């Protein structure tokens, strides 16, 4: 096969790029200047060959690996642990101040003696949430992420090793208050619950679609404040279903206890 263009012929004509030299007699054609013969000199070979190092070799390594592969594998380990012990693990996500901790406090108080709870608290700083939960009598581990904006599966792994939750219990993982980053990090939870309060805008689901897309349930908190606000509950649900048509909704007030029975019924999901 021809090495130049790949054709099947064997006599490929190479075009010369050098100027064609005319015989001297050709210069008689009203040309004043003489065409100087083109002399191509071969470069002199150096007497001693300089040994150059071989050129660096580039190697392409196909990885095709998920960037968050390590987190996903750790999350699956957590999930396997939860499933084996029939533990309902719930990842609570929301923006700061929507009432995640208040919802947990109320739940622990109302369900004392009926369910066994463990809580993993994620915050950038302080143990304040853990103290609130501990006051309710549930074993709790506080994770401080420092400047980190979300919990990752390895942190939860450490926490459950410390907590040693019992079979058939419920483990609440209260994520760092942030509607963006926690959506990307699977913790191994059985269900993801996004909490939104009616003091926030009803367009949160389309402003922060990743979080609502990955959630199983949306708990709408602080409904006792609805008479004082212009908040369109149905519009919130409409936006939520645009991002995630399978999203369920519950309306509660952790302060007054309104709607909490629905939340407790939901908590009995099958692992």
């Amino acid at each position, binding site marked *: 096969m021809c090495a130049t263009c790949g054709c099947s012929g064997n006599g490929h004509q190479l075009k010369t790029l050098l100027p064609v030299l005319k015989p001297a007699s050709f210069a008689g054609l009203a040309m004043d200047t003489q065409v100087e013969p083109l002399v191509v000199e071969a470069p002199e070979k150096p007497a001693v060959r300089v040994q150059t*190092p*071989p*050129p*660096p*070799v*580039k*190697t*392409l*390594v*196909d*990885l*095709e*690996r*998920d*960037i*968050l*592969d*390590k*987190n996903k594998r750790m999350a699956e380990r957590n999930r396997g642990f939860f499933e084996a012990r029939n533990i309902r693990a719930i990842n609570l996500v929301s923006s700061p101040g929507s009432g995640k901790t208040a919802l947990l406090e109320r739940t622990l108080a109302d369900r004392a003696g009926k369910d066994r709870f463990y809580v993993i608290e994620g915050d950038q700083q302080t*143990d304040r949430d*853990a*103290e609130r939960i*501990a006051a309710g*009598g549930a*074993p*709790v*581990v*506080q*994770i*401080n*992420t*420092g*400047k*980190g*904006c*979300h919990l*990752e599966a*390895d*942190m939860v792994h*450490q*926490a459950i090793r*410390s*907590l040693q939750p019992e079979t058939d219990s419920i483990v609440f993982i209260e994520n760092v208050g942030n509607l*963006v*980053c926690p*959506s*990307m*990090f699977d913790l191994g939870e059985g269900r993801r619950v996004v909490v939104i309060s009616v003091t926030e805008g009803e367009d949160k*689901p*389309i402003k922060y*679609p*990743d979080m*609502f*897309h990955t959630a199983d349930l949306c708990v709408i908190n602080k409904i006792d404040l609805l008479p004082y606000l212009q908040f369109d509950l149905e519009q919130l649900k409409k*936006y939520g*279903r*645009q*991002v*995630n*048509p399978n999203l369920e909704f519950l309306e509660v007030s952790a302060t007054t206890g309104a709607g909490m029975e629905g939340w407790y019924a939901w908590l009995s999901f099958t692992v």
Partner: protein
Amino acid sequence: MHELSIIQSILESTLAVVQDRSETCTVDSIDLQVGALAGVELSTLEFLWPAAVGDTPLADTKLQIEQLPGKAVCSDCGKSFNIGFYYDPCPDCGSHFLNITQGEELRIKSITLVSAPSPPPQGGGLPPNLNFDWNEGKPPLPGGRGGGLTAPQRLKNQMVKN
């Protein structure tokens, strides 16, 4: 700022590959595929990259990102279409029941290694430190978690037993 966590994961995966190689090599480039729905801000990723890899063996590594558009198939009418956001409806029937077929990718497609010239020059210095430990990096990364991946170490056991 989860983009910093993503860069840390890229670094860990890449350095693991380099350490597994028998020959000494550096990383010329890393090729990523990031989907439009992956939840990663590419400009933030590119902005953070030089600062995040500055003190690592990947300081000179090029980050090449291929953006993948979002694609979906409508679960109701079967229409295939490009999707920019999760809340985009099916252009034919308006349904939001969609099967996302592309756009959620967040992966390292490949890395290009350059094997160092051989034979190594006699007494020509040490090979690059490939046993780099991210956690040794002090001071902590700008905007990152304090002290790198030390959050589990900082995990406080505030366990209160009944």
